[in-house]
């Protein structure tokens, strides 16, 4: 897995997530995320490549959220597919992460 981080203004946008984010690669995802995050406050994750996520995958996202919150930042996610959204709902992730459909909506939300 090779995540990519792109800096746009004061925001870090994480892309190139794997197609399957599950217990098999959650640890690797978590390690790469923590390297990318550094001390960035505003972080956007592009979920569109992910077609399948399980509780371990969500757990890795929660770990990232905790890291970001520790430095007073926010985690915004866009492009989640139906299955991913369904699992987010089951895990009540929509209550703790800002979810948007498109990249533009995610960016706009941070400009306000």
């Amino acid at each position, binding site marked *: 897995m090779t995540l990519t981080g792109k800096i746009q203004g004061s925001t870090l946008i994480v892309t190139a997530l794997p197609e*399957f984010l*599950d*217990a*098999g690669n959650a640890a690797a995802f978590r390690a790469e995320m923590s390297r990318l995050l550094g001390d960035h406050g505003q972080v956007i994750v592009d979920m569109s490549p992910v077609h*399948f996520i*399980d*509780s*371990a995958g*969500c*757990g*890795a996202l*929660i*770990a990232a*959220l*905790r890291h970001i*919150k520790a430095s007073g930042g926010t985690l915004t996610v866009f492009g989640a597919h*139906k*299955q991913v959204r*369904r*699992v987010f709902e*089951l*895990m*009540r992730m929509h*209550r*703790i992460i800002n979810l948007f459909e498109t990249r533009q909506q995610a960016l706009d939300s941070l400009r306000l």
Partner: protein
Amino acid sequence: MPGDMTCRQSPLSDSPAAGQGEPLQILVAHDSRVVRAYLQSHLEKAGYGVVQAGSPDEALSLLTSSIRIVILDLGLPEMNGMTCLRHIRERHPDLPVIMISTSLETAHAVQAMKYGAFDYVTKPFDPEKILALIREASRTDLVTGKQQQAGGTPETVYENETVMASRIRRALLPGGVPRELNGLKAGCLNIPSVLIDGDFYDLLAVNETCTDLIMGDVMGKGIPAVVLGASARQHFARALYHHTRSSDHSSLPRPEQIVASVHRDMIGSLTELEMFFTLCYARIDTEKNLLSYVDCGHMRTIHFHHDTSTCTLLQGVNMPLGFPGQDHFNEVLVPFAPGDLFFFYSDGLTEARGPKGQFFGEERLERFIRNNGHLEPQGLCDAALREVAEFSRSESFSDDFTCLAIRIVSPETMEEQAPQWVLDIPADLNHLDRVRDFTREVCMGFGPEVVDEERIKMIQIVATEIVSNIVTHAYRGMSGGNILIEARPTREELIWYFYDRGIEYDFSSAPPPVFDGSSETGFGLHIIAHTADYVRYSRDSTGRNCACVTFFLHRGSPE
């Protein structure tokens, strides 16, 4: 807890409650000194005398003839409050006991009332309510259940009643059930107790594939219990007939509708008579291989699984009939496989006493069914009677002994049920993609009109979560183990079996998930439970764990 024991006799006071002379003495047994003091101050203000006990042993030692009423905490340490209640009832059958508890569980209230508690109050308790109960209890004689000063000689009335109740019972209740009905084999046994209970049961064919079973137990003994039991049985038969006739042929009335309808019919008279009964109303559908049941505080039905020789207990969530304020009853669906057996019974089995006063108990009964579940239904009932009689060294019971065993038989579908899909993988998280591919392959066999892409993904996530749990918890991340996955599709459902030989892991003891973002783990079981239609974890006698997950193919039935 010796350090916490306090015992103090209240000073005699001018007592409006007791009228003239000495105040009526009440024993307050609670392990919290604060609660005892709180109750004491309220009771003394109302003119009662109070004796405090901080433990069950102390409570029992303080039960002198001057004590007229007991207030007992269900959660007392050492011996629990329920055991203490039984000891009190044995030694002082006419002493009213008011139970107090933090527990809101129906089962506790039912059990306490059954053991003869005068009433049951939950915390935070209202002192006024307790005082009202004390006033009522002080006027009531528990043996006859009548208000005092009613006159008569209780013993003779009682003996006549018992003989009469026994005759009424023989006249009103069925002797047995059909041995074969709708592809089911049935066995039944009913031994009335010495004092005559109000157990009742029935087995009715609703159509060619659906059979309804009713088993109930009226709280109380003698004529009132027998008549109420027989009347309840009639109400159910009538409600089923009425609703089946008025609905169109394709949709049968649901068990919850029938129970709600009987409850509406009977609640008025039950309230007036101050009686209630526990109930299990079950429908066995041999076309859908589905048991749907409404349990109202009855004993937990035992489901014997033919394939793994294991048992599950079917828990109910409703209050007994006769408790006011219920207009809706929850129905639970349980899939079964041909060869499975359901064992319905009354508390006469589990509460039969051994020579030392110990109960036969649910655990012993479950073990018995697990070891004998392959017997013919009638043979199983007979063997259960022998087992309980041997345990209690007696053929006569203090409660009715009622049991009904139902076996699902349809050998032709057994062939159909043989596993068609098998995947054997190493217990390693790097093989999750194989689990997903296998799940997809099985699902694709049904076509998108039965299992669509979205459903496939949800089935895949359940499979992934189960395999992850096995790797992490059963094998504790150690390599070398394997996981066997079997898929058994039928016309109505898709059943998955996940077998492993890791350590036994009690999934029910896992803490509930925390959703506020503070926890990163512990969500797998939640996802499984909220995505699959039915989940069962078991371990067979060879030490193999099995997680069995069912998805109904045609939605509409599960909800």
